[in-house]
């Protein structure tokens, strides 16, 4: 048993080393100094308080999408549509804020209603993918992806059409909301403890939901073997729909937080890849909710750090994406190699 632990660690470390080796070769190929680039990412993420704050701001939506997708993964579903669900969350939140911004309601209430609207928006968009899957037989991967593209078009339409800034619409988004409608932040930073607290709370909630409740157990049964679960009396399609709804709510919350806490307006591409990144984090942690927070933090740091890379070394910031993708890919392959090695023995 003890030997197996060392074998596990060996394969994991090997996968990480191989991923780093490949990215290093890629950096060498484009003529960038690899060591300096890695140090640059670290510096870009942790070099100053402001940068650390930026990492924490980016951590919050990633925590939410990771938590959400852990629920759908438990039900054996690939919710690739999280990008769209997050976007719809942002759209609904913006819509609610626009509706109420000139009323006499207290700002705190408006913000709360805006976030709730975002949660509902994400859930609605997710239920669409879920309904296509359960009632139409459309694989959730294609349904979700299609809806992602539709949501992007919807955002662009709104930003350039009905919700455009006074004058002409632009890619920089809708007119920013007035300061009262921003989520309160720590003084001199853009970090909202509300957003961060809510996100951490949701990860903890999902951890206990999947681990310690009857619902979580049955959801996993549906994911592992839907036929057996159905025969044992689990209402299978209701559970699938519910998983979609919960995941959509969390993604919608992430979108609403981007609007109320970070950008204070609706932007094209407001989901910013967090939906896909949440899927990657969930795969990297092998669907174990307990690891969600640290790994999501690491990924957020890579994202923020690579912005620095672009400024200093003129390297495209998609480098963090390459690093993250290869990391997940090689960990998946490493896991396969480990299982094969253990079978052989």
């Amino acid at each position, binding site marked *: 048993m003890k030997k197996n632990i060392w074998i596990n660690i060996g394969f994991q470390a090997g996968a990480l080393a191989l991923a780093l080796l490949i990215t290093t070769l890629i950096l060498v190929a484009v003529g960038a100094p690899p060591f300096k680039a890695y140090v640059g990412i670290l510096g870009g993420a942790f070099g100053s308080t402001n940068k650390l704050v930026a990492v924490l701001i980016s951590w919050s939506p990633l925590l939410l999408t990771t938590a959400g997708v852990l629920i759908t993964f438990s039900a054996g579903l690939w919710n690739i549509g999280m990008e769209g669900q997050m976007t719809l969350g942002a759209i609904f939140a913006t819509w609610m804020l626009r509706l109420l911004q000139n009323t006499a309601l207290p700002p705190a209430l408006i913000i709360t209603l805006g976030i709730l609207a975002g949660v509902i928006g994400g859930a609605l968009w997710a239920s669409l993918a879920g309904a296509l899957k359960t009632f139409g037989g459309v694989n959730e991967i294609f349904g979700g992806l*299609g809806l992602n593209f539709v949501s992007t*078009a919807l955002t662009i339409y709104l930003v350039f059409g009905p919700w455009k800034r006074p004058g002409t619409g632009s890619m920089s988004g809708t007119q920013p909301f007035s300061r009262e409608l921003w989520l309160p932040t720590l003084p001199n930073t853009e970090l909202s403890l509300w957003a961060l607290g809510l996100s951490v709370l949701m990860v903890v909630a999902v951890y206990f939901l999947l681990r310690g409740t009857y619902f979580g157990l049955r959801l996993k049964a549906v994911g592992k073997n839907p036929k057996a679960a159905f025969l044992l009396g689990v209402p299978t399609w209701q559970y699938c729909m519910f998983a979609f709804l919960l995941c959509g709510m969390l993604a919608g919350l992430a979108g609403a937080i981007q609007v109320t806490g970070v950008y204070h307006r609706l932007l094209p591409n407001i989901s910013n890849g967090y939906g896909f990144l949440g899927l*990657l984090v969930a795969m990297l942690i092998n669907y174990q909710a307990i690891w969600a927070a640290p790994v999501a933090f690491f990924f957020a740091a890579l994202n923020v750090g690579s912005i620095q890379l672009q400024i200093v070394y003129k390297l495209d910031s998609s480098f963090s994406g390459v690093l993250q993708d290869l990391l997940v890919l090689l960990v998946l392959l490493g896991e396969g190699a480990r299982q094969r090695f253990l079978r052989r023995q």
Partner: protein
Amino acid sequence: MLIGLAGVLAVAAPVLFAVVGETITERAGVINLSLNGMILLAAMGGFVVTYETGSLLLGFLSGMLIGALVAFIVAFSSITLHQSQVAVGFVLALACRDLAYFLGVPYMNLPGPRLPVWSIPLLRDIPVLGSLFFRQDLMTYLSYIVIFLAWLWIFRTRPGLLLQGIGERPAAAFVRGANVNLMRYVYTIIGGAISGLAGPAYSLNVKAGWMGIQSGLDGFGWIALSITIFGGWNPLRAAFGAYLFSFLQWLGLVLQARLTGIPTQVLQVAPFPLMILTLLLVNISDAEWVGRMLAALPEGTRRRVAKLLRTMRASPPAGLGVPFESE
């Protein structure tokens, strides 16, 4: 009008390569979900190789090589390492996309070489058909051939029958002496190479050059994957889907000039709701509630509706995505 339709055939070439390649892969029982990113990487790589060497042939070959390599990773991870094809394919789709955007930066927006038009003597003089089919470029001709060859191979040859076997009933094929996993490797790599042609066929022909995120190629692979489903894993029906898709896209462009009220971005995503709708049509007859609804209809109508649903229906190879172990 005729020029427009001839353009549809040319624009459809990359879609056809992608769809035919994926059809072959999935026929063998493997899903290569990496298509979207792989095609972007092949488009970038093909363009860069041709730009640096001046050789179009090398550009197309490197697109095929990238397709084959990515397909090899899919095959290795799923067949040898027993990892989820969906997980690995999805991660590869993201990895290749990010890699294409990262590596392609120095080559953005350069004026690129482009495949010349080669009209075929004699054939080009046939009225209507000549200017439609035979005043095209080499890749478009190749796309006609690939559809036909793939169809012939799958449905009219012995190895093709075996290919169907390893996708439908791998255990039965194994008992009859087929090396299921080796053949799955081979077909996945061949399918990947054909799909890989889609990249350079786009970046060296349809829309020459590499424009990063502006290339308009993101999402293309997902459409191709859904056309594969719509095509019911038959190259001919898949080709019909690809042409239909390209035609509708062209129609969108024509309409866009007429209807100035609709923003460009909205028409650009029109393929995606369409994709969902076609998948719905293809799959809906399997849903339980449809069966119940049908049972409630009067007999004559029921028959007709059921027949309509059956013709649209497409069921995947039974062994699709299921790993095979000989023990």
